[in-house]
């Protein structure tokens, strides 16, 4: 493999991983220096990440190297970067993950232009983006690539603390708890890697296979943070800036889905030796059920959103546990709809948070009369996470529930009841938002904010009516992953 040697910087070839990582780190450094000019840094970061997302999505790895006439260098798309025992390469399976991560970051940056999420948001997000890109491009490391990922996730979660807290003098439970799953699991993966090395010497050893399967199954389930390890999601949604919450949650979960896919591909014996499906189903049911129950009682908009996201995540965990090859298509479909719903809700919630002075109940009451579009975006996005009809998540939930019901209808019934809990929570929230206005000093919503909310609602509605719009991208992503 023609790996890039850092010692030969005069080489005309630049590997793509070096370009991506180096570019993101450089951009992070520059934006950190100019972090007080938030409008400028977010705009620049949005443009660059958006361009990267589009370019990566359309990248043809078999194409000829790209000439950079400005730098007098040639970019080798398939070139790899080897450093400190890690080998990075843009392989086909990494492209959808990279492009999705960049697109999510781009959208978050665009939204941040209007409503600040903290001065450090842009530079820290770019560093996180580089970290997640590293995970996606990791071909091999000191131990097998999927098994070192949880350790790297600890580092990324630690960096994420700063933008989740965002200098706010609020409770720190959410950022703190977001650390726990990754920290708890990385030793399990390291021990598993040791056993996996032994397994390579005696591939038929059932005891070794059992141990590896057990360690990885427990590790994956803990990383997925189902109930009772779920509290970070709701706490983060309550206290952290909504756009940051949306972005970090989705980036982490995307990396996690990629990790699970790689683990199950690298160690296909796991489902055969350990009842992984049973464990995931139980964890998913508990998570979806608790998300629904807690959402029905949640009064804080952020927390309600967090519990709705938890409910949706529970369904996704359940789908991961369903055997068969088609379930990954459903998982990706549900994740895409989840991203759209969370994004729509985050658009509305960030505007509401800004106007209601961090969800002060007095300011929140009747805010929908002054901010109808943003309130609607929050409600529609939240309801999408519950699979409410005519919301983005409806088709995903419907397909997911049908798949679950084909195995056990009782589980599907539990999820349906839990979804009703989420819907009840949002109906209560709608009554608050569109109820009598208390703070008459509240200004009408900004036209740009209303436009963004409208776009979010429009995308949600479009996907609710024409979910087949996602079929093409999902099939491409699945094809790329399977290569």
């Amino acid at each position, binding site marked *: 493999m023609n790996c890039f040697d850092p010692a030969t910087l005069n080489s005309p070839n630049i590997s793509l991983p070096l370009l991506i990582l180096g570019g993101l780190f450089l951009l992070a450094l520059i934006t950190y220096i100019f972090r007080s000019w938030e409008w400028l840094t977010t705009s620049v970061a949005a443009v660059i990440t958006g361009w990267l997302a589009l370019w990566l999505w359309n990248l043809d790895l078999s194409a000829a190297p790209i000439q950079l006439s400005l730098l007098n260098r040639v970019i080798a798309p398939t070139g790899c970067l080897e450093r400190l025992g890690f080998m990075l390469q843009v392989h086909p399976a990494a492209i959808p993950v990279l492009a999705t991560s960049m697109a999510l970051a781009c959208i978050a940056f665009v939204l941040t232009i209007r409503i600040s999420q903290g001065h450090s948001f842009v530079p820290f997000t770019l560093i996180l983006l580089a970290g997640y890109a590293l995970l996606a491009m990791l071909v091999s490391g*000191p131990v097998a690539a999927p098994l070192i990922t949880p350790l790297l996730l600890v580092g990324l979660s*630690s960096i994420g603390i700063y933008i989740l807290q965002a200098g706010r003098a609020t409770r720190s439970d959410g950022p703190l708890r977001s650390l726990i799953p990754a920290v708890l699991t990385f030793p399990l993966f*390291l021990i598993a890697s040791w056993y996996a090395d032994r397994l390579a010497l005696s591939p038929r050893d059932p005891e070794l296979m059992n141990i590896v399967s057990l360690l990885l199954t427990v590790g994956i389930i803990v990383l997925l943070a189902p109930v009772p390890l779920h509290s970070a999601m709701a706490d983060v949604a309550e206290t952290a800036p909504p756009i940051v919450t949306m972005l970090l949650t989705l980036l982490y979960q995307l990396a996690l889905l990629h990790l699970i896919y790689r683990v199950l591909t690298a160690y296909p014996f796991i489902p055969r030796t350990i009842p992984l499906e049973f464990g995931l189903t139980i964890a998913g049911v508990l998570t979806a059920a608790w998300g629904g129950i807690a959402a029905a009682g949640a009064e804080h908009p952020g927390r309600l959103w967090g519990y709705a996201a938890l409910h949706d995540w529970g369904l996704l965990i359940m789908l991961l546990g369903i055997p068969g090859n088609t379930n990954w298509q459903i998982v990706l479909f549900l994740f895409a709809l989840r991203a759209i719903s969370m994004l729509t809700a985050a658009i509305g919630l960030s505007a509401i948070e800004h106007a209601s002075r961090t969800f002060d109940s007095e300011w929140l009451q009747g805010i929908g009369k002054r901010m109808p579009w943003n309130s609607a975006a929050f409600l529609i996005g939240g309801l999408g996470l519950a699979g409410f009809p005519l919301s983005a998540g409806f088709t995903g939930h419907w397909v997911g529930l049908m798949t679950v019901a084909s195995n056990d209808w009782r589980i599907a019934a539990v999820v349906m009841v839990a979804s009703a809990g989420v819907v009840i929570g949002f109906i209560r929230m709608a009554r608050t938002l569109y109820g009598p206005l208390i703070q008459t000093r509240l200004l009408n919503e900004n036209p740009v904010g209303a436009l963004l909310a409208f776009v979010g609602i429009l995308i949600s509605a479009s996907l609710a009516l024409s979910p087949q719009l996602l079929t093409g991208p999902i099939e491409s992503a699945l094809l790329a992953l399977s290569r």
Partner: protein
Amino acid sequence: MTSLFSSFNFFASGTGIILTCAVAAAMILLWDWRASLIGLIVVQFGAAAVALQTGQIEAQLMIVQVCIIALCTLILAISIAQAPRSPTISQSGNWIMRLLMLILVYTALRLFDFNFSLPFPNAIEASDALRMTVFFIWISICALLTLGLSNSPLFTGVALLLWCVPAHVFATLLLPESGVSVLIGIVELLIALGCSYLILTESLSIKQRPIVSTDITFPVEGRRMLTDSSMVPIGEMTTMDIPTVPLTAEARQAMTGVTLPQTAPRGTILSDTNLTDKPPRINRAQAAQSRAAQSRAAQSGAKQSQKNQSQINQMQANLSPSDSSQSHPRRETLTPGTPTQANPTQADPTQNNQKWVRSGSPLTRTNLKAAQKPLTDSLPSRQVDQSSPDQYSPNQSLPNQLAEEVQEPTQPTPNLFGTSTHLDKDYINSKAEPQQKSKKEKTGLSRLFNRRQKDETDLPKDR
């Protein structure tokens, strides 16, 4: 440093391991930040000594690990030093509960033979492997217990680092050449940095208030307030003079059902620039006119008086401890109409003397102090007859004077401090300036009072 390990070879012996395990348990039992941080280093040292005993690991690697943990504890300790003394808001239960938890876990481990074994390289002797297994499992359990008992960044950070200690040693043993050890070290430092950042932000959001056991308020209420980050204790405001207005029965009736004002965003870091809204204007001409026509306006003034009195009483209820009458002797001297002494039931013992205000109140502490200058001091001296409270004319009561001076703003103001965004900073400052002298005069008493308050708030070992 290598010789240091050899001189502390004791840690690798059976007694040394038991001692290290006891230190880990003591960290939970004592629940003190100093004990936790020192204990963390001791545990890391013990783990390094045990790993070195196997002879499968280089001393330099263990030295680096000890140094990393020492650096992590230093990072956490610096943050603790930066933060004001505060109890941990995420209570860990008392020491008896923690002791019972430890006993329960230990008994469970003894009773149920889990027969759990960790993988070790073949070169390690079985006895060493068994010893390390027991040691690592106990440390991991202590880490999980700490994690389960705490929600504060400090103890969670300590727990996560404690969890990393055996993982680090173990990874070095299992994967010696992989460089994973370096990565774990970096991750430990990142965890410590993250937790230290959260310690600092936590200290911004939460101020302590002692829970007085003898208080009539049930302590749970105090604890609830402690856990509510939006509440900031009034203890910070002890130097301020609360407007000393009597608590009449009518006013108390008006207070019924009055909730804590929530006009400000929760948890926002505030600055003086928040004071930008339109303030209640003082119309001095109107006040003079009103004084001249005082007798004519007696009846309407009384109504206005009640309204303003209820406002001020509400503010008083929100801001001042009910027992502050003892520390503010002027309160009794200013009693108009229905003096407190004459009607002792007005000193309602059921009123919560630990009143809190929202931390998000747009008033900064400085401005709040200025705003809390005794309003009586700003009134003409003839209205404040401290020597003869009984001769105080109801028509010249403080609320009446306020009624004359304060013109209602355009927007309804449910509470003076609840709508503190309306306060004019300039007006507050202009009112505050002439008060410097009177404040200095009271310095002795205030200082004494503050000292007493400080002693009360001097808390807890657990933070």
